[in-house]
Structure formats: C-alpha cells, structure tokens
C-alpha cells in the first residue's frame, strides 16, 4: 500500500487503513518529499524555536471528521501530561470565540462573539440530525426573528400585556390589529417578527413538498422588512450590518424555496453553476448586502479569488451556502479553534508518532516524478504499473528521524537534519531546496513496480502537482484532463510578525481575535500571542500576528528561469508585506505608529540576536521576520469556482483499479479547500480500499 504525500488527506487515509480492526492487512508506506509531513499544513521551527507556517490555519467547529481523527490520534498517543504540555487534544486546540470582519473605510469593524455551543467537535452526534435543509431554514428563520427583535427600540416598543393569549376573542384580536397598524414603524417590525414566526411554523409543520406555499409570505415579508429597516438604518447607522445579515438570510430562504432545494436530489450542489453572491443577488439580496464587509470576510476566509485577483471573487453557490450554514449553525464547542503550536507540531507530529507505532513506514526525501500506467493482458482498462521517484537524498543509517524537541514538544524543524543524510553537508552548502518544485538535484532515481513494491496506491498530493506527475493519465483520460483544467488553484502568501510590545500597548483592546475582510492582499489576520509560550526565545516577544491572503497570479514572472522565478516571487511577497504594514497595520494597531504615522520598525524582534534588537530600523528589518510565497504547485490552494465542482473526481472513482486519490481537491462531499475536506477525502480513499469507514460514518458526506 503506497500513500504518496504527507498532508491531511494522506494522514487520514493512513490512519484509517492502519486501524487495528484491519489486523495489519495493509502494509503501508508513506512517500514524502523533503524532510517533513504536512503538505499545505506543514510548519517548521526556525531560529529561537519560532513557528513558521504556510499561512494562518484555523479549524472550524464543524470539522467533525478532522477533530474526531485528531482526538483518536491523541488518545492513542497517550502522552504523559506531566511531561508534555500538549498531551491531550484539548491542550492542542484552543477555542476562538471572537471573530471579526474588517470594515471598509469609514465604518467600524465588525466584531462578534459566537457563543460556545454544546458538545465538542468530534463528539458522537446523537441528539438529532442537524444537516437537513428544513432545520437550516428554521435556524435562519429563528435568527432573523432575533435580529429583527434586537433592532426594536428597547423599552416601549410593545403594548403592555393584558391577558393570556388563549383568552383573546376575535374582536379583541381585531382591536390589536388596528392598534398595530397605527403604530407605524415599530409595529411593522413587530409584525414582521410575527410573519417570520409564521414562516417558522410553516417550516415545522408542512411537508417538504408543500413548502412552496410559504414563498408568497417571504416575498411580501421582504418588502415590509426592507421598507422598515431602511428607515431604521437611516436613523441608526449601526443597524446597517444587522440589516445586511437579515437581507442575506432572506435571500437564502427565498432562493431555497424558489430553487426547490428541499426536494432536489443534488442538494445544494444544484446551485454550483452560480457564484454565491450572484445567486443571493438573484434572489433579491441588495447590492449593499452582497458587497458587504461580512460577505467579503467570508470570501477571504476561503481565499475565493480567481487567480488571486481581488476583482474576481468566485465561490460556487452550493458550496458557499453549505459551508456558511455548517460554519454558523452546526459548530460545536466554538465556531473556530486555533492550534496551540505549529500545525506540524499539533497535527502531523502526533500522526507521525502514532502511525509509526502502528507499523506504517515513512520514506522521506522521495519526490514522485511519474505515475506510469500499464495494461493487463486480460483487461482493457489501464492500471498503475510503476511509480517513479527522485530519491532526493540518502539517509545515513536506515531510517530518517524527522522530529526535534523544542520546549519539550516533538516538532518539525524548518530545515532538514543534514547530519542524518549522506552528502548532507554538500546539500546544505549548496542550498538544495528539497521542497521546491523547481529543485532538480537528487541522489538517484527510483522505480517502484506493481506487484513487487506495491499493490495499491493512494495519490494524496496537491492538485497543482497532478499534471506534472500524472502526465500519462491526464493525456489518456478525458475526465482527469478536464479536472486539472477546470478545478483551479491559487498561490497564497503569508507573513508573521513578532513584536516587542503588548497588543494593548499597541492599541488593540479586545481579546485575541481573528479577522478577515482587511485590505488586500493580506486580508486575514489573527492575534497569535498564545504561541509565544511554545517558542524558545531568549527574550520573549510580547505579541505575535499572522497575516495571509491569496497571491495574485504572477504569469509574467513565470516565464523566468526556475531559480529566478522563486527569488522574484519571494521578493514580491516581501515588498507586498512591507507595503501592507506601512499602509494598513495602523488600522489594527494604532500604537505601532510614530508621530508621523509611520510604522515603528524597531518593534520587530530579531531572533538572531540575544536581545532581539536588529540592525538599523527600516523596512529591511522585515528580513528578520518570517514570510512565505506558496507558489509550489502542490502548495497552491484549491478554489471552488462556479462551474468547476462537477469536474472533481471522487476518491471512490473506479477508473483505475489499483489507484485512488485523496485531497481537498477531490469530490469529497465538502469540496472546499480546508482540513475537513482533506480528511473526508482521506477517509473516502480508505473506504475505496477497505470499505471502511462506512460512507454513512464520514460525517457530512451525505449532507444535502
């Protein structure tokens, strides 16, 4: 059993197939290029033990599959809590209740606290099945009632209570109707709450086939609400955001009924030809709402910009809606979770240790270069006949030991341990870039043959790398060709800043927060101060911020020679980061600016010096911080462009009887670039091999 790649999907597949129930039926080998696992989620420890990530990784509270595997992994790992600060999964993840959206100029930032929900992600789901359209519609109807009610003036809005409702005569009710009609604005809002309540009642009581009857109610409700709320907003601009949310929810409900989502066998997928904003607009959302800060924040979270172009936000409507509903309404514990150390340390080191213990073999420094097809004499369908690798480096004695301990935690280093490699000194001196797509230096070639070296293959590499290593498949299989053409990816970029002052001193007076919707290109940032304790600074910085965003496609640069291209891309990110800091950091941290409203570069902490003070303060000091251009094909983030989703291929697909695929780019039910999709896909790949786990137990796979 060969698993190629070491990201979330690969680990999930390996974890499933190495479970004790299979009694060692599968002899698994994981082939990984370079020195570390993790794929897009790989992280490394650099100078001062600092954590260096590909970007900002957040775990949503609805990542049921991912959390479940993580919890099982930590349980099996059974670290001694007296020795390790991160021994249990609860030590590894911290809840993030504060989520924000940066506002366009002239308006205040959105900051919302999402209350903790019952249970924890990965708990067995027993009470009821929340994944039905009816339940989502009810949830949105309830939320709207609450929002509308919250827009009501506080005290005098409602007539005093006279008697119990059950005893009202019809004449009394008529009286109330008249009084309400006289009340103007607020009675209108109250009336709208009543209509919403009625809508909710209808959802609860009518058969799914009959829900179309509620459509006229929604239509007239939209008119009433719009008129009422626009007046209210004119008086109180703070209500603008509330109105935008209500408007979007209303458009969703209307669209769900109009498009007969409840009875469509494809569920939300029937909307994937539309862009999410376009679809909401089609169902009556106001332009201001679909262009709102909130919408932009959501697109930012998914990096949903074609070619990284801020002018081309694209997110297939079915996927966008499914993701939003699951994110807001089905999270458990907290809506978002942050990792307590690097993603490599929290996720991939435990996976590595547990899988190693289960007997899974890991071959580092193996770069896949070609998947070779062949045919049996008896059948016409091709299969994988051989896997060709570059062996990037040879290990001195037997097995490469990839982990190092930092502050008492097994971690991945940011550089390979050259001492374990034959000719390691040379590779270090010459600066071999083991993880770079454009690195061609190697120790030797290697060919694995079917039947001799492997029987079955799980291809769990990034989509961007597929055309490079599956040339034969893409040339002979039209579906694969269409997939690599239609399913798009985008490079991403990120930087991290270690600062010598507290967030409070710098002017941030909220609790740790994650925000998106900020100025491009680094539209998403998070306060990561909780990681500082895990790093090994001689003099601990006081605050830590992560920034990330989609990277504009650099087609011009691409024509340059490989080495020059990589250098140019890195330079581009550094310049963009420096420019962004100069222009925008003051929005978050007004205290980081000097009298002339210039960023105080001397705030940056240099890991190379004992006191953290670097050379002369200037933007060149950014060199002491960490930034990355994720331009390797396999590091590119997978998008969900409208009209592309149906070209994805499922891990269950049977075109090749000894090959299956895994990754967040496959048709895995969720189809979004994220950890959860990768894990679902890995579990699907395991199912394709072993019929276990059952499809019904891949949570959310059969989601409408």
């Amino acid at each position: 059993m060969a698993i190629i790649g070491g990201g979330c999907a690969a680990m999930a597949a390996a974890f499933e197939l190495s479970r004790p129930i299979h009694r060692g039926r599968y002899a698994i080998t994981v082939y990984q290029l370079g020195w570390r696992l993790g794929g897009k989620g790989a992280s490394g420890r650099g100078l001062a033990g600092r954590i260096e990530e590909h970007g900002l990784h957040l775990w949503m509270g609805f990542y049921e599959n991912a959390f479940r595997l993580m919890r099982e992994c930590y349980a099996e790992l059974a670290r001694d809590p007296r020795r390790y600060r991160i021994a249990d999964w609860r030590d590894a993840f911290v809840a993030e209740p504060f989520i924000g959206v940066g506002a366009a100029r002239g308006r205040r930032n959105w900051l919302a606290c999402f209350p903790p929900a019952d249970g924890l992600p990965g708990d067995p789901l027993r009470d009821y099945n929340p994944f039905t359209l009816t339940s989502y519609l009810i949830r949105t109807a309830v939320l709207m009632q609450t929002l509308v009610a919250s827009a009501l003036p506080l005290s005098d809005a409602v007539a005093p209570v006279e008697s119990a409702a059950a005893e009202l005569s019809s004449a009394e009710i008529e009286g109330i109707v008249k009084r309400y009609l006289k009340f103007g604005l607020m009675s209108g809002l109250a009336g709208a709450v009543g209509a919403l309540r009625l809508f909710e009642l209808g959802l609860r009581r009518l058969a799914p086939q009959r829900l179309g009857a509620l459509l006229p109610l929604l239509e007239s409700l939209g008119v009433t609400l719009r008129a009422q709320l626009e007046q209210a907003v004119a008086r109180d601009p703070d209500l603008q955001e509330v109105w935008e949310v209500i408007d979007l929810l209303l458009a969703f409900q209307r669209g769900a009924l109009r498009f007969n989502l409840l009875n469509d066998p494809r569920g939300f997928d029937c909307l994937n030809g539309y862009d999410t904003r376009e679809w909401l607009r089609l169902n009556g959302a106001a332009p201001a709402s679909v262009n709102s800060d909130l919408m932009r924040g959501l697109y930012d979270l998914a990096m949903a910009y074609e070619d990284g172009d801020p002018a081309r936000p694209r997110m297939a409507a079915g996927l966008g809606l499914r993701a939003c509903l699951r994110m807001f309404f089905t999270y458990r514990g907290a809506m978002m979770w942050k990792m307590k150390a690097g993603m490599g340390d929290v996720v991939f080191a435990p996976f590595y240790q547990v899988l190693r213990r289960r007997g899974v073999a890991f071959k580092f420094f193996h770069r896949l270069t070609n998947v070779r097809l062949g045919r049996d004499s008896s059948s016409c369908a091709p299969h994988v006949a051989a896997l060709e690798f570059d062996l990037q480096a040879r290990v001195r004695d037997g097995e490469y030991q990839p982990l190092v301990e930092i502050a008492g935690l097994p971690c991945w280093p940011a550089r390979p341990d050259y001492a374990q490699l034959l000719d390691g000194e040379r590779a270090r001196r010459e600066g071999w870039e083991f993880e770079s797509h454009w690195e061609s230096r190697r120790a030797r070639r290697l060919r694995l043959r079917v039947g001799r070296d492997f029987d079955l293959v799980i291809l769990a590499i990034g989509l961007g790398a597929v055309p490079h290593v599956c040339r034969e498949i893409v040339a002979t299989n039209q579906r694969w060709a269409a997939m690599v053409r239609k399913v798009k990816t985008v490079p991403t970029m990120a930087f991290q800043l270690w600062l010598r002052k507290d967030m409070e001193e710098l002017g941030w007076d909220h609790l740790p927060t994650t925000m998106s919707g900020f100025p491009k290109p680094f539209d998403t940032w998070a306060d990561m101060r909780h990681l500082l304790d895990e790093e090994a600074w001689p003099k601990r910085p006081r605050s830590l911020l992560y920034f990330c965003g989609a990277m504009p496609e650099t087609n011009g640069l691409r024509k340059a020679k490989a080495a020059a291209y990589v250098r140019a891309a890195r330079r581009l990110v550094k310049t963009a980061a420096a420019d962004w800091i100069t222009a925008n950091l003051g929005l978050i941290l007004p205290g980081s600016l000097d009298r002339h409203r210039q960023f105080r570069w001397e705030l940056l902490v240099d890991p190379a010096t004992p006191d953290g003070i670097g050379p002369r303060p200037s933007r060149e000091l950014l060199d002491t911080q960490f930034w990355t251009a994720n331009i390797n094909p396999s590091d590119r983030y997978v998008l969900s462009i409208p009209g592309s989703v149906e070209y994805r291929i499922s891990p269950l697909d049977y075109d090749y009887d000894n090959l299956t695929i895994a990754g967040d780019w496959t048709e895995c039910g969720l189809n979004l670039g994220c950890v959860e999709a990768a894990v679902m896909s890995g579990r699907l790949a395991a199912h394709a091999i072993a019929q276990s786990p059952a499809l019904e137990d891949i949570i959310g796979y059969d989601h409408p």
Partner: protein
Amino acid sequence: MTIHRANAGSGANGRVRRAMPERAAPQRQWPRALRAADSWQPPTRMVNPSAHLKSSATKAKGDGVGLGYQVLEKHMRRASSIAPKSKAVRKAEAGSSIDLQDLVERLARGLAEAAPVFSELINRLGRVALGDDGRSGGTSGLVNANSRVAIEVNSPRPVRVNLELRPEAERRPLKVYGLYAPGAGKPTIRAVKFVPSVNGTAAALRIRLPRLRGGAAYSGLLVDPRSGEPMGIVSVRAAR
C-alpha cells in the same frame, strides 16, 4: 470481500485490485440522509442492502414518502370535523392553537394582516414587563409577571429588565453568556444566569449588576445550549 486477486486468467501476473465501490457520490436527498441517531458511531444501516429489489420494486422506491404526505394532507384537511368535541375542548382550542388549514389559507392571502396578530400573541406569551419599573430604587427582588420564568435582580441602581422569550423557550434549558453594551470600552456583564427547574427548563433568571450609569443599555442573547438556537433576548437598562 475487500480485495481479490485477479483470477487465473491473468496468469502469474495476479494484481491486487480494489473492490468496486457501492456508490461513488454523496446521497444528498433528505429522506436518505437520515440515519438512526447513534449510527454516527459504528456503522449500521436503516436500509437493508441485502434486500434484493427487483425492477418493479426499485421503480417504486421513494414513492412511500411522497404518497404518505399526500395521504396525510388529505386527512388533515378534513380532520377536525370528524368527531364531536366536548365544550371545554372547543373552548380551549379556539384560542390556543392554529390549525393547519387555517395556516395555509392565511399564507395564501399574503399574511400582511395576520402578522401583527401573531406577534401580539407571541409577545403576550413571552414578554415580562418588570413590575418594579425601577423607580423605587435598587435592591434585589423576585418578580414574576405572566411568564413562567422569574427574574431576580441584584443591582445598586434602579434598572428595567426586559425578557423576551420565544414560545419554545418554555420547554428548553436556557443559557445566557453575558450582557453586552454597544460601543467599545463597556465591560461585559457576566453575572447573569438561569436557574434550572427540576426538569431542566429555565425557572428563574438571576442577574447581578454593577453600578450602571444612567441610560446604559445592555442586552444578551438567550440560547438553548444544546442546539445553539436563539431562544430570546434579555435586556437591561438603567434609569436616567
């Protein structure tokens, strides 16, 4: 059977192949999406895959649900006329519940006039105007106006507390995570909680307030902690 060696036909070159999957796409339609509640754990099946369905039966699959709802609908439409009712029941039903037929008719009419009535009903069921309007000065007190949820306030200053509950809230456990004021710099009030009754539903709301400035307004969302569904709003305003 998970993996099988290709049979003798392919000679010594017997490769391992994976089994053909039972399906290769999600089943997203709602009746099929349902599973027994604890089946999120080890796999079980509602639908027995070994039932060998012949073509005629396959054709009929899925009919059951649609057919069932049709039959029900018809039944409901003529439902209430079927049996005579006692007087007490007729009286009780007149004001309390809305029957389906009535609901559908109102929907068809566009609802504009009916809506305020409903909100009035809801307000009557849920709203508690705090009897002590706040003017008589601040001590703790236990007030129970028409709701089943009592409010206990402990405040150094007179305040007005407003509790709006959705009708369902009566049979749910409730939780409020804090009271928030709009604008920056105002502290969150955390000393607010529901005291549960024996069966787990909310019996009383207990609030301990710091000294609030006149006109300060706080509000918080009430949720059912098990599902996260909002159940109402509590708001507190200090008298000027």
